[in-house]
């Protein structure tokens, strides 16, 4: 009996203790959660402040004249951004048309054909492993190294000078891993039944890839390409050492030019025309926001398509 009483008393004491303990734990939880809310909010505040500051200050200099006149050159910081917009568009087309076929082809190979190669032992097996590692390495190479590489190979060794072509080739190397990775992911989400259906109908492997898999994966591939467009528009380091920076309109693939992002850098560090640098930045940010919106919508639809909802 005595033992039983002891037990109860102890039990009650424990119970009271754990209640107090629970309060303490709940308090710590509340405190920590508010702290994390605060930190996350701070992150968003930084973003909104940065974007808001650039857009609200940049919009002051943006008018039709700013968009349609070319930069005056020299250190005056006068003029608009017309030629830089055109150069940026040229660069986007050039890099994408070089990198997209290579990137999509590489991704198709790695997902659809590489597994067959892996069954046969030998050189091919090693090569596939080496390709995979190379893509990973490329994705981590900082852009200034791509610039240095482009400077050594295209600008100096191949004597393409500071030109759209040099910049386009270097830029293509920069976005190649992005396109490979996103295309691989897109192809992986195409259900196996699509392949089996096509092969069962008597289509060859390549017919299946070209007529069934690539069209199904297209939204994902386009997402990757849009992502790369964003990378090219935002890139500066590569073009700083390969594009030359001329403010004139490029006449052909071998003329020098200046992209919008490069123009921001040159305005800010060489002329101190901060208002115009902010104006150009505001346009860049708005473009990036639209590209991101597009990617979000596209990838949402893509995942909807295959989740069957």
């Amino acid at each position, binding site marked *: 009996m005595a033992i039983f009483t002891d037990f109860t008393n102890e039990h009650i004491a424990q119970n009271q203790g754990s209640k107090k303990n629970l309060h303490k*734990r709940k308090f710590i*939880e509340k405190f*920590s959660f508010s*702290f*994390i*809310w605060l*930190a*996350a909010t*701070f*992150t*968003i505040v*930084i973003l*909104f402040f940065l*974007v808001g*500051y*650039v857009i609200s200050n940049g919009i002051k200099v943006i008018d039709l004249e700013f968009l349609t006149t070319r930069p005056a050159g020299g250190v005056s910081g006068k003029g608009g951004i017309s030629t830089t917009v055109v150069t940026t568009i040229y660069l986007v087309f050039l890099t994408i048309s070089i990198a997209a*076929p*290579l990137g999509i*082809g*590489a991704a198709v190979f*790695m997902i659809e*054909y590489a597994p*067959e190669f892996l069954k046969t032992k030998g050189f091919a097996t090693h*090569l596939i492993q*080496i390709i995979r590692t*190379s893509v*990973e*390495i*490329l994705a*981590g*190479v*900082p852009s*200034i*190294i*791509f*610039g*240095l*590489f482009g400077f*050594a190979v295209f600008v100096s060794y191949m004597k393409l000078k500071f030109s759209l072509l040099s910049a386009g080739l270097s830029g293509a*190397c920069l976005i*190649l891993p992005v396109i490979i990775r996103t295309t691989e992911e897109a192809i992986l989400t195409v259900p196996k039944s699509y392949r089996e259906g096509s092969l069962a109908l008597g289509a060859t492997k390549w017919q299946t890839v070209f007529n069934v898999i690539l069209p199904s994966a297209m939204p994902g591939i386009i997402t990757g390409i849009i992502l790369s467009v964003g990378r090219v528009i*935002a*890139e*500066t*380091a590569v073009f*700083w*050492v390969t594009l030359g920076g001329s403010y004139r309109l490029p006449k052909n693939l071998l003329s020098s030019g200046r992209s919008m992002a490069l123009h*921001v*850098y040159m305005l*800010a*560090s060489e002329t101190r025309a*901060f208002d115009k640098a*902010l104006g150009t*930045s505001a346009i*860049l*940010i708005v473009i*990036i*926001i639209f*590209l*991101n919106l597009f990617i979000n919508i596209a990838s949402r639809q893509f995942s909807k398509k295959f989740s069957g909802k």
Partner: protein
Amino acid sequence: MMVRKLLLIIASTSVLIVGLIFLFTFIESTDAIYQIGLGDLLTGTIWRPGAIIGDTEGQFGLIPMILGSIYSTLGAILLGVPLSIFTAIFLAEIAPPLIRDLFRPAVELLAGIPSVIFGLFGMIVLAPLIRNFEVAGNSGFGILNASIILAIMILPTITNVAEDAIRAVPDSYRHAALAMGATRWQTIITIVLPAARSGIVAAIILGIGRALGETMALIMVIGNSIAIPTPLDGNPLTLLLATARTLTGNIAVEINYAAGVHRSALFFTGVLLFLLLLIINRIAHFILKERKIS
């Protein structure tokens, strides 16, 4: 069969590019290695390309830039890592779905903003603020400015990878902890985060790689001086206000007009950077792969 071979050749482009990057930067840097010597390049404390001073004898020691890269990256990690990890915990564990759907695109947007715009922001907004510290020689440009800008720039990288790692922890872990009477916070701290630890470490390593590789934003805010960064006065904290130059900045600032050994020394800077980031990224990939297997 033809198609397969053609695709194999296309897929090998990446190997070719990696090979060419290494080959060309290495070949271009051999002049510097022979004429200056590896030891002098890596331990020399003075960087003075002759062409600028008008003196024929240049000195090419990379210690100032190595220190500049280390200081600015350390600063960025100190400021950026806590914020990134908290944001990742928030997105993965705490945020209500609606808030998360608003926050995620915002973090993605941060990753897409051109680096020159961060640099511009540092020049126009941060520099005048930092100039308020009344220390002789404080220009507003320097390690502190660079660290803040870098911290913002590495935030999306670390947040995304860390969030994935936290999300990858099986729900059964959480349920077990909650069923044992742990609060949600105790579950996160004692169960979820330790389980996601290796992924979070990989996230931080990738963030370090991103910080070391950043170029344009840094040359806009760090001051680009070629001297070893030292505190401006007796207070060691004023080291943060000192101007510096990073390895990446060294290449970008001088490559367009460099010639001879000077040019070769810049390529050597590139080789150093390439190898450094190769190691860093390989470690991060290795950790992430080990996680997937387990």
